[in-house]
């Protein structure tokens, strides 16, 4: 179920170091694009060289008559090659926005495309999916919206397949998920598109495609998890998603992911972990996430176990995603004595402390989670003590980042308050010297002095 079908790799014609360098450049370019609000994956960035080398021609603008011809040929041609060829030509044409516009305005064109997407000929289905991809890249939301109505029908058609054998169906499903994710990223999505998506049966379909089980396909799940993320972080009506079982589905998926990372090497699981972590974290902030009595609907302590297994995995594979995992941990523990207790009883404090040296953001998050535990009172602080906590705190006090130090001071205060002997131990380990360093820092002064007082005078 978790095996992901990888694209066939082209033979390497350059060294590993060069690849790494290129990747760093690409990363930097993407960061820049995001900061300039231009990181919308729908932007088709044409690599002319690649196009010409492989296809030998530049996309033309097609008019109505031509599009019609291609569609008819694709639909009714006698030769398979001919039909496929027609779709290939159409797809190339659809790289041009003018052709896209003409296409969606042509009567019956989407319907024909839908028919081809559900064809019993694998190649036609694949090419039709590529056409859908082209359309979903359009800068013009009208084009992408034109594809939206077909989604419900297509999902019904595609929803029964087994992941092992129906590759064209999977391709179409992925294309659908991808097209939808493009649509949901549009600037006007929260006002115009997301409300209508939420009013349809699409969310239920999406959640179904995210159910763990033998039918789960990683590529498909990734696309629809991102769709869900764009919907949720737009905060239009998350309560509705919760009533449809989003929390429980995503929770189960998290458990499944944790199981999978233990078994599979390098399957791209972090691609799915990221949106799942985000969805869960944001959903947990909704009032609807709480059941009667203030307890979280999502209560299963296996979620904590799963999260730590994922944190370990991310530490190896993609440390830059650690903050996202810790964000979820914060949201789980903030108002939940039960989850805080789980952290203690499952012996997870020490692994957590281990993450303190990764980065400043990660350190602040770890300290915040520890504060979540400590602030619940003496019974909790008792279980945090003794142990490596004090020496870790002395280490973090040596950081220069104000946020990290500030959070350390908050934690210290809680420990001094709830754990007898903590202040003493702190003094004995040269805690005062550690504090002194920050006496002049505006943001920290007051707290530093207060702690010094407490340590010395009780």
């Amino acid at each position: 179920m978790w095996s992901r079908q990888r694209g066939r790799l082209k033979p390497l014609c350059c060294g590993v170091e060069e690849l790494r360098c290129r990747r760093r450049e690409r990363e930097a370019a993407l960061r820049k694009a995001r900061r300039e609000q231009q990181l919308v994956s729908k932007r088709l960035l044409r690599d002319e060289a690649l196009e010409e080398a492989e296809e030998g021609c530049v996309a033309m603008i097609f008019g109505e008559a031509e599009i019609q011809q291609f569609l008819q040929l694709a639909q009714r041609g006698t030769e398979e090659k001919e039909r496929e060829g027609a779709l290939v030509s159409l797809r190339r044409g659809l790289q041009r926005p003018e052709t896209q516009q003409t296409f969606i305005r042509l009567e019956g064109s989407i319907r024909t495309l839908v028919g081809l997407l559900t064809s019993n000929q694998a190649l036609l289905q694949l090419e039709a999916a590529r056409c859908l991809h082209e359309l979903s890249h359009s800068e013009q939301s009208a084009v992408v919206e034109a594809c939206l109505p077909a989604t419900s029908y297509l999902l019904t058609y595609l929803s029964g397949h087994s992941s092992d054998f129906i590759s064209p169906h999977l391709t179409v499903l992925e294309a659908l998920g991808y097209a939808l994710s493009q649509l949901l990223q549009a600037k006007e999505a929260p006002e115009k598109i997301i409300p209508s998506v939420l009013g349809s049966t699409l969310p239920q379909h999406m959640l179904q495609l995210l159910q763990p089980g033998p039918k789960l396909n990683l590529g498909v799940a990734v696309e629809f998890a991102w769709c869900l993320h764009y919907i949720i972080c737009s905060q239009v009506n998350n309560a509705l998603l919760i009533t449809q079982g989003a929390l429980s589905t995503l929770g189960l998926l998290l458990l499944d992911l944790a199981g999978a990372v233990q078994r599979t090497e390098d399957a791209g699981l972090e691609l799915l972990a990221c949106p799942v972590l985000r969805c869960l974290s944001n959903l947990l902030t909704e009032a609807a996430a709480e059941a009667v009595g203030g307890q979280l609907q999502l209560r299963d302590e296996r979620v904590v176990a799963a999260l730590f297994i994922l944190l370990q995995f991310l530490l190896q594979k993609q440390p830059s995603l650690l903050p996202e995992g810790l964000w979820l941990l914060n949201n789980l523990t903030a108002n939940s004595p039960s989850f805080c207790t789980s952290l203690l009883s499952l012996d997870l404090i020490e692994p957590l402390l281990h993450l303190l040296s990764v980065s400043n953001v990660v350190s602040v998050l770890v300290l915040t989670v520890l504060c979540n535990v400590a602030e619940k009172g003496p019974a909790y602080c008792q279980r945090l003590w003794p142990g490596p906590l004090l020496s870790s705190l002395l280490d973090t006090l040596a950081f220069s980042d104000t946020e990290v130090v500030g959070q350390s001071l908050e934690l210290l205060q809680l420990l001094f308050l709830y754990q007898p002997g903590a202040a003493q131990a702190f003094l004995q380990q040269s805690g005062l010297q550690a504090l002194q360093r920050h006496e002049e820092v505006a943001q920290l002064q007051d707290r530093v002095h207060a702690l010094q007082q407490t340590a010395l005078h009780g």
Partner: protein
Amino acid sequence: MQLPPALHARLAGAPGSAEPLPVERDPAARTAPFRFAPRPVRFPREHDFFEEGDVQRHLYLQDVLMQVGGAPERPRVPEFTCQVAGCCQVFDALEDYEHHYHTLHRNVCSFCKRAFPSGHLLDTHILEWHDSLFQILAERQDMYQCLVEGCTEKFRTSRDRKEHLVMRHLYPADFRFDKPRKSRGPVMPGAAEQVLAEALGDDGVPSEGDAMEVCSEHVEPPPVPAGERRAYSHREMNSCPSAALAQLPRIWPERYHLPSVLVKVPREDLKGPRREISTSNGGSSAALWRCCRASPPRHGGPRTLARATLHVAGL
């Protein structure tokens, strides 16, 4: 990061939550200058917190493009015939065969040989077409269930349901899900196309009667055990054409089927002036985390619900 060995066992264990330790707060805890209060945090879509994950997502999309490039090579195998009795379709690529098998042989009704894209639709068909009790009940109540999973509407007639599917769920007006089995004998390329063309409304007349109806030649099914109502029930039985495949050369290709045209490498001038870019590891300010709180702290009085308004500036 060493995890306690019992953790994996816990993951595999039963659901359950920890009995919480007693909570006992001292009001001195939140006295100035200290201000920590536990709170769940939410981030809106454009927040910088998401930068890393977003960048990784786009790298992935670019990678897929680079890997796939143009149309994927399709490995050819020596020609072989579909093994299902009565079907003589010939193939020279495994992908085509798997598609053919699923579309035409997998979810097949053993009563009337119609093929369906999914088990769900097959079940619905059997219920509506081959269950006499259904017909009796349908005279008195709405029995035709909407085909869209998650929609609970039921209808008196199949035509009403079809109208609902078209109007409410925007199905194509001439949709159909069932496909007839192919006739015995050499495959006539026109046959399947004919059905498809009709489905797409070539004849200009919407199909009458039931949306899933079809009429064509049928073939004797492979012998099914008595009492077995469908051509497949459990995965183990007929879930894959493995028997047929066992005879074929074992070169099942590994492919990632994502169409090729996705995000490409940006052609920006990388040498141009650019903003300071912080690396992912430690450079970014931890103040990032402090933005965007959800509801105010819960202790003491009733919770106030802070909804769509988000406080970006920190507190």
